């Protein structure tokens, strides 16, 4: 039986009904090493009296979108303060610290 099995494995095409060929290959994927994930901060319960920052990353047209969002905020949530901010695509540590210190929540975008 053992010899028959070996013959089936090494002579592809022989005894078609039972023959098989196995390719054993190495996994090309690199293992990902990363630290522990973090959950987002708890959400604010509501918008009344809160400060909302809109952070525009400078991509074309994002300023128009955020201007439109500010209009809607002002009409639907008149007691919410909206602050328009602008910066690089990747928020700098200084800007992140400032936002954390000065506003209750913020929206980042947009373009890609």
């Amino acid at each position, binding site marked *: 039986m053992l010899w028959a099995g070996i013959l089936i494995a090494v002579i592809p*095409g022989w005894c078609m009904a039972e023959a098989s060929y196995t390719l054993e290959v*190495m*996994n090309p*994927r*690199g293992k990902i090493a990363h630290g522990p994930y973090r959950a987002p901060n708890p959400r604010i*319960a509501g918008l009344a009296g809160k400060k909302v920052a809109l952070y525009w990353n400078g991509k074309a047209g994002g300023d128009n979108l955020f201007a439109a969002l500010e209009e809607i905020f002002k009409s639907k949530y008149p007691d919410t303060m909206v602050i328009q901010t602008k910066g690089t695509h990747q928020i700098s540590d200084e800007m992140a610290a400032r936002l954390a210190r000065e506003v209750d929540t913020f929206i980042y*975008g947009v373009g890609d």
Partner: protein
Amino acid sequence: MYLTTDQFAKDARSAAEDNLMPTMRIVELPARRYYTDRGSLERIRPVARAVFDQIIAALTQPLSPEEQNIGGKGEEQEEIIKITAENYDLALEKLNEFFLKNKWSDGLPIIPPTRERVKWILSGTRRSPGEVIGTVKPKNGIATVEKIAVNAAMAGAKPEYFPVILAVMEALTDRNYDTLHVMLSSGSFNLIIAVSGPIGKEINMNSGIGYLGYGYRANSTIGRAVRLSMINLGHLWPAENDMALVGRASSHTFLTFAENQEASPWAPYHVSQGFNAEDSCVTVATVGGYGTTGGSQYGGGAVGIWDAESIVKQIAEDVRRSSRMEIRSWSGGVSPTPGSGGGASKQFLLMMPELAIELDKLGYTREKVQERIAELSAVRYEDLKPEEISAIQRAIEVGYIPEHRASVYINALKPGGMIPVVIDPAKDINIFVVGGFPGYTLRMAYYRRAPYALTAHQIRKISGATLTEAGR
């Protein structure tokens, strides 16, 4: 919360995971409307109204347990994959389908990376299979020598190419190299992989007619091994986290070539970078894709007549035109401003041998060509805007203009002065002599200051080779 378009939603989720916050809330705008309507407040209002309630929900709805209780360990993976079919051909086909379905391939059929094949590839280097070369962005997959060998085997590379592939991966995993931008940006940037020194000839790389084309196993599979390594070690995939909108020319192999040293009147490129002539080196550099900082072509090829001085002038004019608009960003200093590349440009000239020979006859060395292009591309002091003058002054103060070049700018910042747009000719104009007779000269360019790291231009000495005389 993050606001993006539906076309970039997978990318945003992937980036959130890469930055260790996989459950960051994301609201999607319809791409089909956003990109056309964003040009005016009037047109974008309905798009904003349509997502406003989702935005409010993202800001105010409490986090679910799934959003809060998230793991953080890397996933385990099977290191040996077994594929069984009725015969070898069917197993090979099944393997290719399996790899592509898992996003482990590049769309072309692969060579099965069996243990024997990988061992064969590893025979080309003295380096240990377990040695960690670095991690590959965006997902920071660990690049060991063995993992790179697996990808080189898949690419169809030969062991004697492997030291070159390792040197490229060393350059790309250098913490100062901005791989995020070249591999992920919507601008579809590309990579030059330029081999200089004797190993290019020894492994039969094409450096003559058709050097960016097909037909040479070394050029094709060195580049493809790097491409597959970027896919599998960086965990890249188009329209998921590689957002190059039009892909890239030579996307499967990048722009991989060897300098044509036999036809060059000058020392090899790597000598200009401080290496010895007998060394073999590989230069890796990001260059523009379509329509951003993309290239230009000079010379007449088989059909046109040209003269060397005129080509140098044309190149200089194009350098001035493309670099002029960047002067204001020089004030950004030497560190990258995350997400915002700029600060002048780096030029890469793939110079046809005839042009180098003609220039040599006129008394030009590589250095003199660099200096001449810098001189001819300079702009008049009177043409600078006040904010450009202050940006140049700031660039001197913060060292973005290196000390050995500062006096050039200080002397030129006055009426009648000519301000170079090429900050450091020796480093910012890179000349490789490559191609056949006749040829064309190509100019490619990229930001001098990459957006997410200090540079996008590295050179590495090839070492550890066991099967070639060069690169040992």
